[in-house]
Structures are given as structure tokens and as C-alpha cells.
């Protein structure tokens, strides 16, 4: 589904990423883990066209999307959420999702039809799916942090992505919010047959959800495999997991 080949990113002589090969299959929940500064966010930015990779290619469903502009990637079936909450703060939750639906249904260049009247049911349904049915008319910026993350998920889903990239979906969340979003992501993924690629610090979350993992250290993957295989790898234990999950 998503193939990353020999991806490298050089910043002024420093290789933030090098020789990254990743293959994410249909329906997989693929986690990228690694210590701070390992290049996880850089990898996400390089895959999603935010940074132009120095070397290598990214293909989605067989199409070369290396360095393509974000709006094209979305139309090709990629969705992404951000580490820090990234919604439209002054619009209501409902309007947030409505804007996303307008974009997905290519109504951008409709200068006549009142925007308010379009995709109302779909917007409400999406909000309900992420558990925000009650909050539809609240201004997004005034929602609690966890709810803004849920809203962001709804925004990403509005474009009906085949592959969804989640950058630290639980960053900044309380334990309860983490549990909620975990359940939500799992449900949505199964319901929609989504392919997930995500980064995460919370190892409990990672091992609860991932079907495949890649361990990134200093910009290079040092291990691939199922959670069990990664957990068992001596090298990963040594450089990253530090025995924490050895038992």
C-alpha cells in the first residue's frame, strides 16, 4: 500500500534520515518508534510532502508521490494528523468537518451554493463516529484537548483516506484520554479497513495497537517486524527499549 524506498533527508550536511525502507501493507497498523530525535517526525514530513526528500521514493498504491504537494497527496488517498492539535480553532466542530467534506467532494470552486447547506448529515455522522455528536456547535478552540484530537481525527477521515498517518496521536493526553483515543482509533481502523502508519512514545499504546513495527535510531531503521519480534530483538533492547519491556 505505502512503500518507502531508500529515503534520505539531508539538512546542511546532516543526514536526518538515511536508507529508510518501509513497506506498509493494506490494513496494517504500523508503528514507527524510536528515541527522541530519531527522525520520526522528519520521516512523516518527508512522506507527506512537507519536506522534499534528498534521496529515495515514496509510492502510494503504486503511484509515485515523492515530494508531492499535500493537497495532491490527500486526493491520492493519504490522510494525516499532527503531533500538536491542528484544527480550525475559530470554526465550530461542525464547520470544521464541513470544510473537510467540501474539500473532499471537490466543491471548492462552487461560488454559488451556500456552504452551510452542504454535507450536513455527513458532517454530523462523522462527528458521531469520533464521539463528538454533542459538541457539534462548540467552537473548536474551546474544546478540551482530547476532544480536539478527536476532531482532528474526524477531519482526517473526511477525505476517506486509504492510508492514515498519525503523528503521536496521544501526545499531551491524560491517561483516560489516551485510552479513549486508543479504542477509537482501533474501532475506526477496523470499521473502515484503514491502513495506519503512526509514531508514538507511549509503548503501552504501541504494543496494544501495532501489527507491525519499525524501530528508527539516528535516522535509520534498525529493526522491522511484528511487536513480538521487535520486543525479542537484542539490538532494539540495547539501544532503545532498555530492558523496560524485556519481561
Amino acid at each position: 500500500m505505502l512503500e518507502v524506498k531508500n529515503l534520505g533527508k539531508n539538512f546542511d550536511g546532516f543526514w536526518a534520515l538515511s536508507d529508510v525502507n518501509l513497506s506498509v501493507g493494506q490494513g496494517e497498523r504500523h508503528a514507527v518508534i524510536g528515541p527522541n530525535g530519531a527522525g520520526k517526525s522528519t520521516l512523516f514530513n518527508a512522506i507527506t510532502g512537507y519536506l522534499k526528500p534528498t534521496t529515495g521514493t515514496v509510492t502510494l498504491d503504486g503511484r509515485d508521490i515523492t515530494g508531492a504537494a499535500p493537497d495532491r497527496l490527500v486526493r491520492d488517498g493519504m490522510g494525516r494528523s499532527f503531533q500538536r492539535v491542528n484544527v480550525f480553532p475559530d470554526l465550530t466542530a461542525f464547520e470544521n468537518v464541513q470544510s473537510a467534506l467540501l474539500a473532499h467532494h471537490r466543491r471548492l470552486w462552487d461560488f454559488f451554493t451556500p456552504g452551510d447547506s452542504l454535507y450536513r448529515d455527513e458532517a454530523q455522522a462523522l462527528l458521531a463516529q469520533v464521539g463528538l455528536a454533542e459538541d457539534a456547535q462548540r467552537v473548536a478552540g474551546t474544546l478540551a484537548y482530547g476532544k480536539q484530537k478527536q476532531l482532528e481525527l474526524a477531519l482526517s477521515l473526511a477525505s476517506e483516506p486509504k492510508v492514515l498517518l498519525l503523528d503521536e496521536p496521544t501526545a499531551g493526553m491524560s491517561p483516560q484520554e489516551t485510552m479513549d483515543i486508543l479504542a477509537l482509533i482501533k474501532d475506526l481502523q477496523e470499521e473502515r479497513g484503514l491502513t495506519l502508519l503512526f509514531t508514538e512514545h507511549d509503548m503501552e499504546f504501541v504494543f496494544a495497537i501495532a501489527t507491525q513495527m519499525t524501530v528508527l535510531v539516528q535516522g535509520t531503521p534498525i529493526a522491522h517486524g511484528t511487536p513480538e519480534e521487535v520486543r525479542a530483538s537484542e539490538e532494539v533492547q540495547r539501544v532503545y527499549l532498555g530492558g523496560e519491556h524485556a519481561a
Partner: protein
Amino acid sequence: MRVLLLAIAALAGFAALPFLFGDYGIFLGAEILIFILFALAFNLMLGHGGLVSFGHAAYFAIAAYALAILLTTYNWPLGLAFPGAVLMSTVAAVIIGYFCVRLTAIYFAMLTLAFSQLVWAIAFKWSDVTGGDEGFVGVAIPDWLTQPVSFYYVTLVVVAICSAMLWVIVHSAFGHTLRATRENPQRAEFLGIPVRKVRLVTFILSGTFTGVAGALFTLLNRAVFVEFAWWTKSAEVLIMSILGGVGSFFGPALGAAALILLDRQITEITEYWPTVLGIILLIVLFFLPDGLIGLFKKRKPDA
């Protein structure tokens, strides 16, 4: 609904104006209408798109000059010259906008300013065509339009139609998309919105409607002066929008009317009009964050 009723009331008021005032009042009314259109077109970018243009005088002046030149130098009939003049502003907005939307924030504003100063310099230096320093005087206006009342009603109809079109655009699916790009361009891109393209189209629409205002202004003055392109004209429409309230559709219209009326009233009393304007703006910025239009709005509990 409330907004539309107020708009209809305002329209009726403007329609009744020639029955209540003399020629001076009619002239002033037409000037206000023209600046209402200018401010509404400008606010498509500022208020709805979050794009601070500091060079909107350019599109105003280009259509103003183009109409004067087409009518007088080339003897075009008004029915051709007017759309032709507006089209010149559209073309300028396409070209200038193409470069400007590549930048954001203050760099965007500075580039729009730079281009508008370029337009000013051309108008100033190319005196064979534009009249340069002395202005383009004696524009060949069709006889029927020299009557203040007939000109006034033509202006009213054109401004009303253009304002209605802007209203529809702002509330359309495109308008919603534009708001999304204003609120969070990065997120908008990852919803599949081509942000730059949306901004360019907004730039072109805004420049075009500004051109309509500029062309009407030539008909009003029967002359074009190089000051039309000077940066203070760009600042004026910015002040009108902020004074009236950029966050609502009709705010800038109110600001335009208020600024012109205040200008006339206060200039009669004191020569320190800019000082008074400064104080008024301070009061509005501190106490009326939604602009003058905020005085007419019911407080919403949450928004």
C-alpha cells in the same frame, strides 16, 4: 435574516437619497457607494481570507485610468469601455496575485505594496497616456450620465449587484473553504485544499470588484488623478474595513460610509482630521474589537 433585512433597509435608504438631498448630497452618496464596494471587495481578502493587501489602490487605479483612456483617447462606447477597464484590473490581479500568493503574512503585504507603487510610478511617469502629475481630466462621459441623479442610480444598481455577488461568494462553498485557509492553511492543505490556488482566485475576485469601484470613480469625478494609485488609498480602504469590522460581511461597508462622512464633517471644523481619525481608530480598536458593526450586533453567548 436580520442582516438581509438591514441590507434591504440600507438599500431603500440609498434609493431615497436623491429625493432628500441636493446635488452635493447625491455626489457624496455616490462616493460612499463606490467606497462601500471597494471596502467589501478588499475585505474578501482581509476579513474572509486573512490576506493583508497593502496595495489595493493598484486595482482601483488601473480600472479608473483604463476607463478614462478607453472612453476619451479611444472613443469606446461606455458599454464596452467599462467591462474592458474592469478586465484590466482583473488581468493585473492575475499577474500580481500569481507572485504575491507565494508569500505570506508581512511579506505578502509588502509585495502587494511594492506592485501598487509600481503601478503608481507608471501612472506618474507615463504622462502622454495618463496625464501624469496633472491627472487625466476631461473624461468623455456619455451625456446621459452627466446628470447627477442618473449617475447616482447607475452607481447604486452596480454597487448593489456587485455586493450581492460578493455576499453569495462569501457564503458559498468556496467562501467556507477560504475561511478554512485563513484559519489554518497547513491543516487546509492536508484536507486536500490547494491553498495557494484558493488565495489566487480570491485575489483575482477582489481585484476585479475593486476595479468596478475604480471605474465608477472615474465616472463620478470625470477625471483620474495619480493619487488614486498612491499607497494612502490602500491604507484608506484598510482603515475603512477595520473601522467597520472585518469579521462581518457588512462591517467594511459601514466603515466606508463612516470614514467618508466623518472626513467631511470634521474637516469643516478642524484641519487636524488625521488626529481625530487616529483617536477614533484607537477607541474602536480598544473598545469595539468587532468594529462599528459590533454596535448593531446582538451578543452571541458563545462565539
